[in-house]
């Protein structure tokens, strides 16, 4: 059943690839994905102040 869905979506992708909207979509979505992912990576950085947290309980 899943294979049929994957096949159907693959055909849809091929249709979209040949459409006029494709170029704008890939440019805008790439920018947005990059900004959001950079935001996520930054949120994982430990600040210099936090590195001075004393652990001793």
């Amino acid at each position, binding site marked *: 059943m899943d294979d049929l869905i994957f096949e159907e*979506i693959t055909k849809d992708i091929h249709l979209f690839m040949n459409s006029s909207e494709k170029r704008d979509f890939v440019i805008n979505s790439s920018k947005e994905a*990059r900004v959001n*992912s950079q935001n996520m990576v930054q949120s994982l950085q430990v600040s210099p102040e936090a590195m001075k947290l004393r652990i001793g*309980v």
Partner: protein
Amino acid sequence: MKTNVELNNIKENFIVLPYNFEQLKEIFIAFSKIDTNYLEHKLDNDFYKDYLETLGVKTIVIEKEYIDKDFLNDYANYYVKCFKLYERFCTRLHFFSCELTENSFNSILINYGELNNNLCNLQENYLGYIVVKNLPQSIIGKTCLKCYPKDNCRNFPATVNHKVHLAGLPLNIKTLPFQEQDSVVAACATSSLWSMFYGTGELFHHSLPSPYEITKAATQDFPISNRAFPNSGLTLEMISKAISKVGLEPLSIRTNSPILTKSAIYAYLKAHLPVMLAVTLQKTITAEDIGGHAVTIVGYNLDNTKQIDTVYQSIPNSYPIKLRATNITKLYVHDDQVGPFARMEFGAKATLKNFDGTIKRNPTTNEVETTWALYTSFGIENKRRSFCAIPQAILIPTYHKIRIPFEAVLKQIYEFNHLFIGYSETRNNEKLKNLANNLSWEIFLTDINEFKYSILCDNNLSDDERLRISKQRYPRFLWRVKVYSSDNNILDFVFDATDIEQNEYIIDTVVYSNQAFEMLKAFACMYYENGLYYTENKIINNLSAQYKISSNPLLIT
């Protein structure tokens, strides 16, 4: 039952006793300088009582005048210089789940050469040991106990095979050594590092420093306002220094998001790397901050059959991503204020504070602002939820060849997921939307041997794919990213963890569903036109390169 006075009068080096918790207390009193009232207070949370009962302990074998390497080192560097005479010998208590007597134990020793069956039973029933230090309060020394029984949800990837010799009898136990802080040469940070190094020492063959050596290595290059010994704690910088002193690279990750924290912990634990969790302890009722604390994460409880209800969004209203480690509900940690394999549960809320220590409130609603936290087993009078732990950071001691960090892999996954969901939003196709929103990701570090072994055992792969991968050359360390479509593993991306970030470091794809693979390759190809890539995403670049190799060129505009 033997009282502590009777125990002290026994001359034999090995004493075999039936287990009960009161007997254990008498043993602690007999072989240390601990006061009875203090011992009652120390064991008040019933952790050791419950834990040993869960293991099914029936017998204790006491090994007197035991020399513990780590304590001897600490003794030589610190305790011996006290005016008061402290004892350098410890006592080791071995626990068994079978009933033994003095006679049956002696029989095993006498007949070991002839009757190996006895030893097999002894090994099956061996539950580990606790070293008792002859000190006034911090008496729990090196503790190697069997972990909780493993089941489908409970996993302890950071345990190692630990060899033990009892009167010459070879035994082994799969565990990670634990010991409590003595507040002299070691606070919680040092104890946590000490446990972690037993795990990494097994993997990367570095030296195993004693608590004194760890504290010394951590503090010697830092100007500190307080003395290093007696030790009142270490900063994260000092902990990183101690990690680098054994030849490893410290990696720290902030713990703002519970989902990303779970994913990072899972990613490294799966590679058998113990992870240090630095927290701020807070009383749940009064919201009083107690201070910084560190524990060593050894295992987790993850139910893979549950639906993933919570998703991660990097900013509100952005496309979400489902990470399979989200369903981790508990961590099993070595907490030197509680014991080995103590549970910490997700789901708590802690009060946020301003810089001046006052409670932070929402300026509009005046509601108290909270942050995510973990319930701990830390507390007095068995009130398990008296304290919560606010995670500040996790620290992972990585081998120098593991150059690609978790966040670099997560970035590629996040971007690809974002692009795919974004595409599904532009199309009027419910099946596509459903597929995109039910993609989930499992990210973990592994090595070539475990990767290939798992492939050999994987019946969901075709024979050709299994043969191809088992004969392929790979680097020593790999990031493996499993992609699921509604709980069916459709594809794995394999990243070279030893490469540099600027390179295209996806080196293979493990294909479980050919049709899904074709779909994702076709999707990736949208981002390539006339020799140019619209994105730097490595998954897109890898898939579109594979599409170009395998597909009909007439399909590409």
